[in-house]
């Protein structure tokens, strides 16, 4: 902290393109989610609660919209329910979409935080520093997906979400968050860091499938795949390539094709240019669940 700070060459940190200017090497964590495979069973969400020490807020707070589900299963219903010739039972028209932090490359939440509590890591994660957060909630206000969750109450102590008998259920690798801080999906950063550290000590890179996120691990239909987008041999990179979805583009070339693309891959709210790291595969299945 001196005058030299001001004289440094800050231009080297300036970005002209949010993705292409900072090549991720050797890792860029990304996900793809096959909506055709998703059965809406919520196992991913449960696994996430267990892995990441997420407080279960209870019925009343859930009804107030204060739930903390880092990954949530969204239900959408077909519009033809009840109309003549339409489906009779709403369940038949249910569609599911697992939604979590999209780990955007140009994250709208990062620039607005007054204290810099949310940052981009070298391996392409949107990180949250709980200790630094002062709870201005500007990040959540600017998040187009609304996937950031605020600790409205002091869950670990006063709200007693984890009674004495349950404290051993908590994951020791993950911080328990106190009241007044923002939190969100981390892509299970504790697992990633452990895997990267192991690999580094053995002088190699993390290979595909070596590390799984909790949601991916729990998914009975393997709808979620997760891995390193930089490694062209990884399952995720292959899926992205096959769907012609490119991380650095805000409009995919395939979408410009006349009549639209027949490929299923898309990213949510891509047109806002946050460059999300999660690709969804459109549902094609006609039948219910």
């Amino acid at each position, binding site marked *: *902290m001196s005058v030299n*700070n001001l004289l440094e060459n800050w231009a080297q940190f300036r970005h002209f393109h949010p993705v292409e200017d900072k090549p991720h090497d050797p890792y860029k964590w990304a996900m793809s989610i096959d909506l055709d495979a998703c059965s809406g069973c919520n196992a991913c969400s449960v696994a996430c609660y267990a892995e990441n020490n997420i407080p279960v807020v209870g019925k009343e*707070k859930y009804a*107030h*919209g*204060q*739930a903390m589900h880092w990954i949530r299963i*969204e239900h*959408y219903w077909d519009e033809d329910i009840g109309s003549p010739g339409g489906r009779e039972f709403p369940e038949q028209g249910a569609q599911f*979409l697992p*939604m979590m932090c999209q780990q955007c490359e140009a994250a*709208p939440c990062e*620039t*607005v*935080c*007054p*204290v*810099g509590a949310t940052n981009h890591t070298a391996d392409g994660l949107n990180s949250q520093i709980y200790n*630094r*957060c*002062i*709870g*201005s*909630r*500007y990040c*959540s*206000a*600017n998040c*187009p*997906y*609304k996937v*950031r*969750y*605020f*600790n*409205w*109450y*002091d869950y670990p102590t*006063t709200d007693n979400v984890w009674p004495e008998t349950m404290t051993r259920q908590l994951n020791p690798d993950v911080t328990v968050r106190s*009241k*007044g*801080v*923002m939190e969100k999906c981390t892509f299970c950063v504790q697992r990633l860091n452990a895997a990267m550290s192991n690999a580094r000590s053995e002088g190699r890179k993390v290979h595909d499938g070596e590390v799984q996120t909790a949601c991916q691990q729990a998914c009975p239909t393997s709808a979620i795949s997760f891995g390193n987008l930089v490694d062209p041999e990884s399952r995720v990179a292959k899926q992205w390539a096959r769907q012609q979805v490119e991380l650095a583009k805000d409009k995919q070339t395939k979408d410009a094709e006349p009549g639209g693309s027949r490929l299923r891959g898309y990213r949510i*709210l891509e047109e*806002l240019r946050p460059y999300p790291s999660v690709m969804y595969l459109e549902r094609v299945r006609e039948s219910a669940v």
Partner: protein
Amino acid sequence: MEKDIREDIAWAQINKDVLRSLETPRPLYWVILLVALAMVGVGVGCEIYQYQTGMGVANMNNPHVWGLYIATFIFWIGMSHSGTLLSAILHLMHADWRKPIYRFAEAMTTFSLMTAGLFVMVHLGRLWQFYYSLPYPNERGLWPNFQSPLLWDAMAIFTYLSSSIIFLYVGMIPDLAICRDNMHPGWRKKLYSLLALGWEGTDRQWRNFRVTYLTVACFLIPLAVSVHSIVASDFAMSQQPGWHVTSSPPYFVAGALYSGCAAIISLFIILRYVFKFEEYMTLSILKKTSRLTFAIAMVWTYLNAVEFASVWYSHDEAAKDVLIQKATGTYAPFWWMMIFCGSVVPLMLAFKRFQANIPVLFAVSLLLNLGMWLERWMIVAPTFSHGYYPWAWDHDQWPSLVQWGIVFGSFGWFALLFMVFCKVFPSVSMYEVKEMVYHRSLALKNGETAEEGVH
């Protein structure tokens, strides 16, 4: 045409009248003070409860992460603008009718900024760590995030607050000397002697004083514009539908001047009665203030129309949806109320017979400020209720009593600070009123001489 002030008031009479306001106000003063104190009590109680339990008691949720706090914060920041308008801008334009009323307008600026500052604090999830947002030296070399509009906000507000305190104080020095010279020994005498900085009214002192006052006034004007533009940037720089509007900064500044002028009318009427200032705060000045308010109201209405039109004719479907939601959804009653209070009620001020009618003006000015508070709420809440992501739409969230209590308490806090100020410091500028009387009587005398010459 009625006179702004009588030309034949003796200077000693001015001193006497203003100094009397420091000692014996009407009983209503004490009633206001007590009510304000009770309101502050409610606010403080709610804040203690929220601090202890967590922000959840405010009934905020995902997506409604900002509530009335931010809306009321903008309201108070806005309120602070007309003090600068009245004292600095009108000072440069040599509009001398501002002289009897600018002191309390400046006090209003300072205290509403202090109130606004409180809302930033109340809003924080971890109030005890608020200093992380300050660029203070620390061994880790950590800085706040200079990209964040919230940080610009904090800096703009702090600069504006400190400058307006300086402006208020500098403008008061000759008056403090008058107080010092006329008070019986006691705490007041000590206070005024300290603050008057040994003012003797020599030529040299007056010359330096004029230059200083003018410099601070010139410094303050761009600040007043920048501070509310930056508050607008909190919204305009985000990418949420309904906030991401280019015309936001001027719109916010116009809204700020508007609510400030309306507040000046309300406080004008209260002070005039409470401190028996009928001789100084004349109906003619009130008339000028209400005309000014009317003009600003029309500017605000125009900018509102610009904003709606630019959203309506844009290709931004999400922003358009938010606008439709405002006009037809859950918030429709409040939104239409805002249009009514902000654009229809001020039309009353266009009629000459209402321009100096005290009961009508009092009611109108309160309605205008209600409209302006609703405006701020209608900027914040509907966008949260109807953002980009349909799954996260929430049209039913309603702020809890804790939020309402703190908002309610803030009005008490402002009234408390303001009323205490008016009792401790002269709320009418004695030396400037004397100047005004002098200039007017001079003009009158010149006119008479000229007339004599004709005969």
